[in-house]
Structure formats: C-alpha cells, structure tokens
C-alpha cells in the first residue's frame, strides 16, 4: 500500500518568500530520518515546498480559471513537504510518521494513495491509461 505523509508546519502559511530551512542540525536529523526510510526500502519519494507566499492558486468560478498569487491570507494550514512511502499497512505508515523528528508546531497527515484496483470496473476502464502513463514516467 502506498501512503503520503503530508508535513503541515504551522506558521509556514505566513513564511516570507525565499524562506529556506537553515538549521543545519534540523536538516541533518530530517535527512537521517529520510535515510532510515530508504534503508527500510519504503521510500518512493520526498520533497520540500517553497512557502505559499511564492505560490499561486487557480480556481474556476463559472468554469473560467482565476489566478490568485500567494500568500493566502485566509489559510490556516499549508503543506510544507511530503513523503511517498510503500508499506504493508496504515499502522506502519503511522509508525513511520511517529518516528519523524518533527517540531512542536508540526503535524503529519497520513493518506492512502489510490490504486487502480480501488476503483469500480467502469472507472478502471477509463483510468487504465493513467497507470501505463505512470509506468512510462518511471522509466
């Protein structure tokens, strides 16, 4: 089963453009955690995201795209980064998230990734190409 571990650092919603992790010790302990995921053979991917103040949001009022640049004043929670892992159960995913050297202000959300076989046969028919596309991407 594949899971996403979504890192939600409170306060990051108002981080200034260009903010980067600059605490050597903290980056080091996070890298050690990443390496433990890798050594256990569960890590598929992990990324960190620049602050929302450098991002944008696209909504579709009346079916037409409308672009709003960050920061997003009304937002209380934003994504700071994520891990994509392959484990045998939800409990194992929670176990890994619990081992993350997270700070006081951080929450990790665990969400299962949809696989083709999770869908109804009709949806699988339409979506089957996506799996072959993903295979192409992985090559």
């Amino acid at each position, binding site marked *: 089963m594949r899971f996403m571990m979504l890192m939600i650092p409170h306060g990051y919603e108002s981080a200034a453009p260009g903010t980067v992790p600059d605490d050597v010790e903290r980056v080091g302990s996070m890298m050690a955690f990443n390496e433990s995921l890798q050594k256990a053979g569960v890590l598929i991917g992990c990324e960190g995201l620049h602050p929302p103040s450098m991002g944008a949001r696209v909504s579709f009022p009346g079916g037409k795209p409308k672009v709003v640049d960050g920061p997003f004043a009304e937002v*209380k929670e934003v994504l700071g980064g994520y891990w994509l892992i392959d484990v045998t159960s939800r409990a194992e995913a929670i176990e890994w*998230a619990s081992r993350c050297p997270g700070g006081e202000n951080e929450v990790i*959300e665990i*969400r299962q990734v949809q696989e083709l076989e999770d869908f109804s046969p009709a949806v699988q028919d339409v979506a089957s190409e996506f799996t072959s596309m993903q295979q192409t991407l992985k090559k």
Partner: protein
Amino acid sequence: MRFIVLVKASPDSEAGVMPSTELLTEMGRFNEELVKAGVLLAGEGLHPSSKGARVRCEGKKRTVIDGPFTETKELLAGFWLLQVKSKEEAIEWIKRSPFQEGEIEIRQVFEATDFGEAMTPELLAQEDRLRADSAAKAGR
C-alpha cells in the same frame, strides 16, 4: 524548476464519490498532454481523509488522531509534480486542465541547492543516494 500542483478536496472527494466518466476521460486526455510535453514527473490521487490519520508532534510525544479532518478546508485530494521553466508555465498548464470547479494550489519544490550552507556536502551526497535509490524503487 519543479512545481507541485495540489488539488484540494471537495465534499464529493471526501465522501468517496468518483468523478464522472466524462471528467475522467478529459482528465486522461490532459494527463496525456502533460506526458507528451515531457512535463509530468508524477501524479497521484488520495483516498478520503476518513481513512487517514494525523500525527501531532510535541517534543518527544506523538499523538495520533484518526480522520476525517472536518475542521480544515485545506485537505488534499491529489497532486501532480511538473517539470517546467517557470511558475507562469505551471499556471498555464492548470488553466488548461479540465477542472470546472474547486481550487488548485501551485507550489515550487525545493532543490538541494536552495538550502545553502545548511546542506553540507555530506548531506548533499546523502540526498543524491536517496534520490537514486527512490527512483529505482519507484520504477520497480
């Protein structure tokens, strides 16, 4: 530059309602365009938050909270990871997506070089190993 395109959850996605065949077909076509243009690195959809959990970090203490997370308006339903030349190009792609409603957030992904001095040569080497191994695992 890599950008992540975050697709926000809707009441339907949280209820586990699947998109119509029509929207899925259009989405398939859009994904194909992304692949043909060589910009799509990855894309996934997520099960509703009712099947998920949150782990809260407080010092050494870890508190596990089961989903759903009804108090937040910022739940994720899925994402694309794109390789493009600018934020504008990422936005252009999303304008062309078959979405008719909802909100999509575009965020730039950190590259190892963005970290400056915090990323020591040892950590950089570790990062390279990690990426090579993860790529091998993803392709397995």
